[in-house]
């Protein structure tokens, strides 16, 4: 197979994968008797056509940055963390406990504390699968899936039986005190000139951007990142270099879990202001697609997260303004994951035809 130049591999392959996913989605729409062009414009207009739409797109993107980074860090250590969903749910629990524990006077104090809570709980939820992988070689993909279900059951129990205020029927915590309210983009000076109406995107967006930069520093500028990447490329060689597999599996997964958990400051603290059931809404899974699309690089993750934020918000608009069921966005996500993550070789083979070196005349 012809090897592609780096730029083609990094830019062209994801773009073509994306295009293929879009084409198939269009066929799906045609198949169910809907108009792909209408769907496209509703999505574009609803997600990007107004500051209001952007407010939602960025809100979702913020969540996806966190979970995408989480998948990325683990992926570099060749750990496929499918547990982002459960870790994000637990992160929500951490945020809720912190926010409800004290009558926080101001968000500047509540946010750091909530971040610690979110990260700790998310990391704790990743710790057991990590430990089982490191010590007993239990496949992390299956254990993290199981932990997603267990997290959901645990949260249901806590929300129904422990955290639900007396007299409330829906399984949710009480509302957080006003001092934990994070400024939304329409409440931030300067930005409020653009975002004139209340939008859910909030200060967490900037935390997410800082996390992108920190993850980049970590992976490519620190010894730990170097060790994680080395371990991920070759476990055998890593032991030769004296890199402890136990340490790397644990640390990579704890960081990954913490990043997933951190997502909760966006949706739980920033948006709903209380912990409801299934608050993460599948963002943990979307993190997989985001990381794959973003080629496991923080910059790529950022761009892919915005793309998925667009898909997510655009999908919601479809549900609102057209008769296309909102499930279309699940299909599109699945197709994007399929083409970028599993059929990437096919795309490369297709591209290979164009990059094949000219056959040299061979002396007979």
């Amino acid at each position, binding site marked *: 197979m012809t090897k592609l130049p780096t730029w083609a591999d990094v830019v062209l392959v994801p773009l073509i994968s994306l295009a293929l996913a879009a084409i198939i989605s269009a066929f799906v729409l045609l198949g169910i008797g809907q108009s792909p062009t209408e769907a496209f414009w509703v999505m574009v207009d609803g997600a990007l056509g107004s500051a*209001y739409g952007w407010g*939602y797109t960025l809100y979702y993107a913020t969540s996806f940055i966190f979970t995408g980074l989480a998948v990325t860090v683990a992926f570099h250590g060749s750990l496929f963390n499918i547990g982002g969903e459960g870790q994000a749910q637990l992160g929500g629990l951490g945020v809720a406990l912190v926010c409800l524990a004290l009558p926080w006077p101001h968000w500047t104090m509540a946010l750091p504390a909530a971040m610690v809570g979110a990260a700790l709980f998310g990391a704790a939820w990743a710790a057991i699968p990590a430990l089982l992988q490191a010590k007993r070689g239990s496949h992390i993909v299956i254990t993290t899936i199981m932990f997603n279900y267990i997290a959901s059951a645990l949260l*249901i129990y806590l929300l*129904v*039986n422990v955290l639900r205020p007396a007299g*409330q*029927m*829906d*399984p*949710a915590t009480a*509302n957080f005190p006003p001092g934990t309210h994070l400024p939304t983009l329409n409440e931030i000076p300067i930005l409020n000139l653009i975002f004139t*109406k*209340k939008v*859910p995107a909030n200060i967490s967006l900037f935390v997410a951007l800082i996390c992108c930069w920190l993850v980049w520093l970590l992976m490519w500028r620190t010894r730990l990142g170097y060790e994680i990447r080395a371990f991920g490329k070759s476990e055998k060689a890593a032991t030769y270099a004296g890199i402890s597999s136990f340490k790397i599996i644990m640390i990579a997964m704890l960081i990954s879990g913490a990043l997933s958990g951190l997502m909760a400051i966006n*949706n739980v603290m920033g*948006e*709903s*202001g*209380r912990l*409801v*059931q*299934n*608050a993460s*809404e599948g963002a943990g899974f979307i993190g997989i697609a985001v990381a794959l699309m973003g080629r496991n690089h923080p910059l790529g993750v950022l761009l892919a997260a915005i793309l998925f934020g667009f898909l997510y918000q655009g999908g*919601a608009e479809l*549900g*609102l*303004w057209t008769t296309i069921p*909102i499930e279309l966005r699940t299909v599109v996500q699945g197709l994007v994951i399929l083409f970028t993550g599993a059929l990437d070789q096919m795309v490369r083979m297709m591209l290979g035809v164009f990059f094949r070196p000219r056959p040299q005349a061979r002396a007979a």
Partner: protein
Amino acid sequence: DLGGKFDKSFNEAAFNGAQRWAQETGGTFKELEMQSEAQREQALRRLAESGANPVVMTGFAFGDVLNKVAPDFPETKFAIVDMVVEQPNVRSVVFTENEGSYLVGMLAAQASKTGTVGFIGGMDIPLIRKFACGYAEGVKAVNPDAKIVVNFTGTTPAAWNDPVKGAELAKGQKAQGADVIYAAAGGTGIGVLQAAADEGILSIGVDSNQNYLHPGKVLTSMLKRVDNAVYEAFKEGTELKTGIVVMDLKAEGVGYALDDNNRPLITADMEAAVNAAAGKIKAGELKVHDYMTDDSCPALKF
């Protein structure tokens, strides 16, 4: 609510109400279905934002969200079913499900040959216990020795949409002797009714008239006229009167269904007894206990 528009029950009733209004007036309405808890706020805001007025939502789970959203859109009128939200621009519609359940409970007890009847609730919340309690009182009113088997499908909104579990619970209740089962469980009820029909016992539908689902096998349905509530709200439009509206038996907010499908199952005696009780309730002579007033039920232990 999360059970989905085609649950043949609660949500479908709401949708039918809206549709009736649209057909009669030629107006248009936007409907939104929730995929998850977290979406409620976005959906509400988006609707209000788009200029929809009034905005009608069904299900107690909107209560908290509405409390947050309503003040941001003072010009918009909201109506919420099954929950009281005290905001100046909100109408709260509540039903006396205990009364309707009492009536179908009486029918159940009269139809039962084993003296054991069943109740399958959706999510285990006070509202559904209110159904169960009214039902139990109705049953006991006919047959003080009757046994009532009670199950709930779950503790989360997923409990509204779990037909498999509903069916299994129904089969379990039949094994315990129940030969009439009342399903107050949204979409889950479809599974209950199906299983009951398969097992050759009777079932009681809820919210909408579900008698037609398995003709001759559904004893009756406890009607909760969510459709009327929605229809009224739309009809009043921007002039929607806010405050609390109680839809009780007297106001025909609740009742039981009698049509061709279940006609052969309801004898004249049964009908007479139930109608008599209904008359007393309307007249205020008979009080059916409301679980939500004191979180307890004289006729049933949970």
